[in-house]
């Protein structure tokens, strides 16, 4: 038997094998009649097109960098406030869930209506960053060593002193880990805004403009560059973290919106807080419109959407179009999400049974965490065409990878001692799996579900918008063409609302089930 090549050599070898297979498959036009060109063909085309690239890359990098900075300023600032004040955290819970769950493509058009120039792209990039950094900050600050803060307090230090001297430094690894995940999110946000916002420059615009030309090698080249930029932004922060802190933390996407315990407050206060939590997103929506000063005809307040959908002269037609679109979008969202989760679950479980076989796959799955997967939908159009299967596969691919990473990393945390007990009684692999691994994976299955809810809706809407011409995504795209402002706002509001409701449903079921089983929520 050959000696095991070790460590990164094995990774390099796997990468080389993958590239070789890609090259052969591409050169022989084995995928959908040449929809996947050979790697060298893509690189050559990239070289030929290079004249076009700098302005597109500059536009995307500019928007994502500014968005990254702004999103982080808000994320860290809000994180500090939330860590200091449980009331604020409770009050902003609705806003935080909405930011986490909103499908960026749905609000891209309304940002284009209300902001101008690069601002919509920057705003969407910032939204993709805010949540990750905010949760990382809250978690980092609240996990600080309580004994160390006790020392500061014991010497009469204020809460601010404790924050300054202990908690902020303690939170740094968590925040840096957050920035690492946030950076590729900013790139994704910028590209999605380029899809939804028109404009000439930017990799998203370039991708969209090249979609109709039937040149697979160019599309793949753009996809490669977009992936590279996102990957580099991730690697940069990973390097920074390991340089400054000496250690890097696992790449897990936190999907839990931070919560506070409000149990010990009076009923009246709790009701007020709940009402405030629900009202705040709408108040911010209203405030945003008043602030931008865009005329009422174009920008709709919450009340404006209600009028459009229920009271106006076209209400009936609007309702029926919205319902028809929902009837197309929702089933495939659920099917795609369920399929993505199921694949991820089966693969993660079998990674416990056949560790060596799956070991090679985990790095691939980790790399996809930094890829703007949804933004690569045009590439899938080449392979799968514009039918329902495209929507399904886009949805599966954007849900499968993050779910797999969450599950696989969660399962790796199952303590050895828990498995030793059945094993010491001679249990088979299957018995061990049934008794220990499967139940232990439940919290991570819920965490993965929370993560995939908004992604599934985003995947479906992107596919509908760019390719299939069905459902909510298409309704949104059409309404832009018809200047049907009411419908644009309605679709945006409804899709955010649906995402939030699904997310909350998952959280409620999760709490019930895990509490009954005596388990804690997976962070």
């Amino acid at each position: 038997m050959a000696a095991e090549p070790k460590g990164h050599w094995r990774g390099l070898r796997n990468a080389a094998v993958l590239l070789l297979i890609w090259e052969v498959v591409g050169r022989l036009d084995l995928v959908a009649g040449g929809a996947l060109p050979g790697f060298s063909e893509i690189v050559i085309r990239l070289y030929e097109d290079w004249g076009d690239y700098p302005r597109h890359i500059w536009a995307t990098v500019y928007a994502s960098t500014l968005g990254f900075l702004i999103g982080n300023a808000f994320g860290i600032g809000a994180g500090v406030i939330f860590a200091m004040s449980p009331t604020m955290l409770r009050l902003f819970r609705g806003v935080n869930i909405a930011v986490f769950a909103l499908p960026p493509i749905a609000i891209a058009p309304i940002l284009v209506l209300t902001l101008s120039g690069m601002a919509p792209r920057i705003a969407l990039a910032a939204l993709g960053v805010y949540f990750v950094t905010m949760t990382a900050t809250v978690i980092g600050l609240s996990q600080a060593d309580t004994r160390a803060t006790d020392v500061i307090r014991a010497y009469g230090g204020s809460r601010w002193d404790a924050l300054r001297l202990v908690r902020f430094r303690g939170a740094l690894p968590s925040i840096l880990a957050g920035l690492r995940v946030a950076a590729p999110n900013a790139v994704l946000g910028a590209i999605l805004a380029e899809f939804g916002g028109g404009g000439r420059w930017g990799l998203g615009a370039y991708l969209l403009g090249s979609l109709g030309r039937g040149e697979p090698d160019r599309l793949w080249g753009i996809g490669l560059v977009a992936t590279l930029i996102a990957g580099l932004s991730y690697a940069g922060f990973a390097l920074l973290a390991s340089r400054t802190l000496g250690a890097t933390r696992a790449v897990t996407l936190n999907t839990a919106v931070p919560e506070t315990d409000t149990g010990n407050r009076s009923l009246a206060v709790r009701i007020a807080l709940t009402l405030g939590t629900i009202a705040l997103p709408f108040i911010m929506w209203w405030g945003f419109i008043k602030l931008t000063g865009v005329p009422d005809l174009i920008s709709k307040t919450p009340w404006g959407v209600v009028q459009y959908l229920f009271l106006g002269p076209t209400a009936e037609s609007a309702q029926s179009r919205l319902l028809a679109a929902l009837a197309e979008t929702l089933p495939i969202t659920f099917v795609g999400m369920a399929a993505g989760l199921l694949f991820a679950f089966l693969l993660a479980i079998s990674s416990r049974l056949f560790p060596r076989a799956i070991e090679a796959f985990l790095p691939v799955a980790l790399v996809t965490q930094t890829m703007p997967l949804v933004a690569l939908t045009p590439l899938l159009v080449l392979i799968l065409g514009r039918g329902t299967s495209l929507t399904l596969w886009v949805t599966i691919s954007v849900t499968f990878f993050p779910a797999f990473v969450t599950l696989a990393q969660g399962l790796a945390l199952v303590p050895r001692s828990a498995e030793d007990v059945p094993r010491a009684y001679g249990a088979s692999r299957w018995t061990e799996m049934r008794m220990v691994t499967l139940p232990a994976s439940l919290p991570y299955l819920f965490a993965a579900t929370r993560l995939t809810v908004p992604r599934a809706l985003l995947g479906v809407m992107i596919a509908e918008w760019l390719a299939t011409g069905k459902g909510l995504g298409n309704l949104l795209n059409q309404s832009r063409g018809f200047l049907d402002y009411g419908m644009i706002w309605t679709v945006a509001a409804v899709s955010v609302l649906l995402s939030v409701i699904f997310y909350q449903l998952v959280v409620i079921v999760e709490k019930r089930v895990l509490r009954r089983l005596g388990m804690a929520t997976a962070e």
Partner: protein
Amino acid sequence: MSAPDGIALSGVCKTFSGRGKVVEALRDVSLSCPAGSFTAIIGPSGCGKSTVMRIALGLERADAGTVRIAGQASLDAARAGVTGVAFQDAALLPWRSVKRNVEVPLEVLGRSRSTAAAHVQDMIELVGLKGYENALPGELSGGMRQRVAIARALVTHPQVLFMDEPFGALDQILRRQMNVELQRIWAETGSTALLVTHGIDEAVFLADRVVVMHAVPGRIVDVIEVPFDRPRQPSLFSDPEFHRVCDHVAEVLHGG
């Protein structure tokens, strides 16, 4: 012919390799525990005492040497339900109630849980957890969780009982209480017991023989017979003769 030894290890060797380092965990470890005896293994951290137990249980494979549990290979003994085991941390499944945790070995061995129901209840009562049958591990104190682990180890009527620092997480007072209870339970079941511990007084109080190990490489340096009559009373903990034996164990443990 005499009955086969409860636990018999002979010439067991084990090395671990990883990250370019090779560690000799066990060198030529031989140990024979007569049926019905109580043996304690004591040694510094990293001396391989837990590895001895894991090899005896069949959880790790020895590089060389043989292991017989009640005259059988370890995994055969495990599948025949001869062994019982309690680990360092209680290693309970957090989503199962006390009763369902105690039933785990029965489930693995494919024994009927309904016919054993009375026995499961007996074991729970034996460790003093009556009334907590349906509690989840998260609702119990550390000491109570350890007692669930003991009940689980005993539920199969094991001929051979393995315990890896079962009271490691407990405070001194509770630990002594549990030592006294464990002696009572062991005497009632008549099983062969192997206890891995780093508490000298615990080892001397419970065991017929204390096996002392040293580290790097992990090896047995001495086996000390403990002369006290059974049942041993809690007052033994303050007996001068008890302290003399403890001092002797400590000397062998720390001496070269």
